[in-house]
């Protein structure tokens, strides 16, 4: 703690040295614990950006976001996605899938042929197409001179909730028409269903010869992909990481049927109102597809090429409930958030925006709120929102997409609200919730992004404004 305090003091001094405007120097306690009761208060630090532990690392160990590529049910690039959130535009639509029938889903409408030939789309998977689109968009957005990039030093780390269900269901459906003659089972099934497929299709499409694989982490996968990419950059296993998560889950009837059997699939007469985390009348999950991949680089490399930096990974954590297949454990979730805060060297009250995982299930939302209450207590600074209320649950892409939806708040100072909260569930009534209307004029320096999944996998990332 002493070294932490010293290093923070050093950061404070450096901020003054670099000319922090005296007007911006406010007497705000800096907390070294993870509650709002100051254990070791320090005052008079510059609010231009609160110091964090990552900033003390050498530039080749600091990981920054330099590109964002995505497709969401309500937007096919970062800007339009953000606009949809600020305009409270849902991407949930009526949907029908074999065997299960009519339901609702978050459906993407990106141009599959922008970066893939028709033949590639036919041969590959939906997850592959989502990934190819997001990866190409991210590289373009990052302004990278791709033709002169050493692609053996590019790594691809794609988080997925599941993979292979879509193709297996398709093949069983096909051979059913041939009295289950397995000689009619496609030779494409194995390359489509190997677990690395969503990352491998990106490598094939973009000629990337560095490492590629998926990170199977249930619905914590979007964050897990980002964390993996950052770790590999720090280990110098690659110079550029394409990292995040993808989902093709709406194309498997099994996921709808399983959530339905679990009484956890959302229904609503108005599709746009079906995904309603924190509302007392929430009745389950809206399954969504989508993908969001980031270009991650070491700060030293990003600076060297003069890249625009959209945020820095200042903290992260993953842990495990080890208590149940599906029911979350708020104690472990709270520990995960606290671990991420500790790694970032930040106090709970220094987080400006918490992007929740809440999916719209009765118990899951309550449990996450319980965890957040444990960590953030009655902190007055953090604002709390939820992006699934617009797009549904994009499974492996959820964490990375929801983070992307919030990162532009560094620039626009707006916290998009959780929509569809007509009557807040008292069990979810935690301080800082931004409901139904955006909050403008909020200075955002740190976004904390929760992403949790089945089998008790928890992930948290904290991105700082640079």
């Amino acid at each position, binding site marked *: 703690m002493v070294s932490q305090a010293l290093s923070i003091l050093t950061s404070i001094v450096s901020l003054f040295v670099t000319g922090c405007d005296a007007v911006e120097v406010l007497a705000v306690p800096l907390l070294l614990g993870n509650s709002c009761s100051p254990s070791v208060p320090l005052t008079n630090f510059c609010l231009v950006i609160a110091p964090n532990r990552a900033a003390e690392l050498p530039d080749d160990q600091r990981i920054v976001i330099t590109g964002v590529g995505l497709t969401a049910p309500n937007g096919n690039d970062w800007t339009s996605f953000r606009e949809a959130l600020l305009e409270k535009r849902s991407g949930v639509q009526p949907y029908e899938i074999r065997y299960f029938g009519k339901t609702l889903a978050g459906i993407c409408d990106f141009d599959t042929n922008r970066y893939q030939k028709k033949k590639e789309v036919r*041969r590959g998977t939906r997850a592959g197409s989502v990934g190819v689109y997001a990866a190409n968009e991210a590289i373009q957005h990052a302004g990278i001179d791709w033709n002169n990039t050493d692609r053996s030093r590019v790594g691809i780390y794609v988080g997925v909730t599941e993979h292979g269900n879509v193709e297996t269901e398709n093949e069983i459906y096909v051979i059913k028409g041939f009295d289950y003659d397995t000689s009619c089972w496609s030779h494409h099934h194995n390359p489509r269903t190997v677990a690395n497929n969503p990352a491998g299709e990106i490598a094939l499409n973009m000629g990337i010869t560095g490492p590629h694989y998926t990170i199977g982490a249930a619905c914590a996968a979007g964050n897990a992909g980002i964390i993996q990419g950052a770790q590999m950059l720090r280990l110098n296993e690659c110079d550029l990481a394409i990292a995040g998560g993808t989902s093709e889950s709406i194309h498997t009837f099994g996921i709808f049927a399983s959530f339905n059997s679990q009484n956890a699939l959302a229904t609503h007469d108005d599709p746009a109102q079906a995904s309603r985390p924190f509302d007392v009348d929430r009745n389950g999950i809206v399954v969504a597809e989508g993908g969001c991949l980031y270009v991650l680089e070491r700060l030293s490399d990003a600076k060297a090429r003069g890249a625009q930096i959209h945020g820095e990974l200042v903290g992260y954590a993953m842990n495990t409930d080890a208590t149940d297949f599906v029911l979350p454990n708020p104690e472990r979730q709270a520990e995960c958030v606290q671990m991420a805060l500790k790694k970032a060297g930040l106090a709970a009250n220094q987080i400006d925006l918490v992007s929740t995982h809440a999916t719209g299930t009765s118990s899951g939302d309550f449990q996450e709120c319980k965890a957040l209450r444990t960590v953030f207590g009655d902190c007055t600074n953090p604002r709390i929102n939820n992006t699934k209320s617009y797009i549904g649950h994009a499974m492996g892409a959820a964490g990375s997409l929801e983070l992307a939806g919030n990162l532009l708040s560094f620039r626009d100072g707006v916290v998009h609200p959780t929509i569809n909260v007509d009557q807040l569930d008292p069990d979810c009534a935690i301080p800082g919730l931004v409901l139904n209307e955006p909050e403008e004029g909020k200075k955002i320096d740190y976004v904390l992004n929760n992403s949790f999944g089945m089998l008790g996998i928890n992930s948290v990332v904290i991105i700082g404004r640079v």
Partner: protein
Amino acid sequence: MTPAEIRDEILDILEDISPDEELDSLDDEKAFRDQLELDSMDFLDIVMELRKRHRVQIPEEDYGNLASMHSTVTYLEPKMKDIVKS
């Protein structure tokens, strides 16, 4: 099926397999691989589609007969002559 009908069927399968290719100018005497971007998985698609659509079985040792349109139609003619085009 007549040889012309078999040819149409193969063209229909190729349109599915190679949707980016222009097939109007296909030379029946030239190898598919010299005119189209086809790999071994694509040839397996031809085999699979003939199996699914017409229950025509092509043993692996006969795959060489699928080199060009002409050789394919010649090879398939006895196997498909009794199939009525739907």
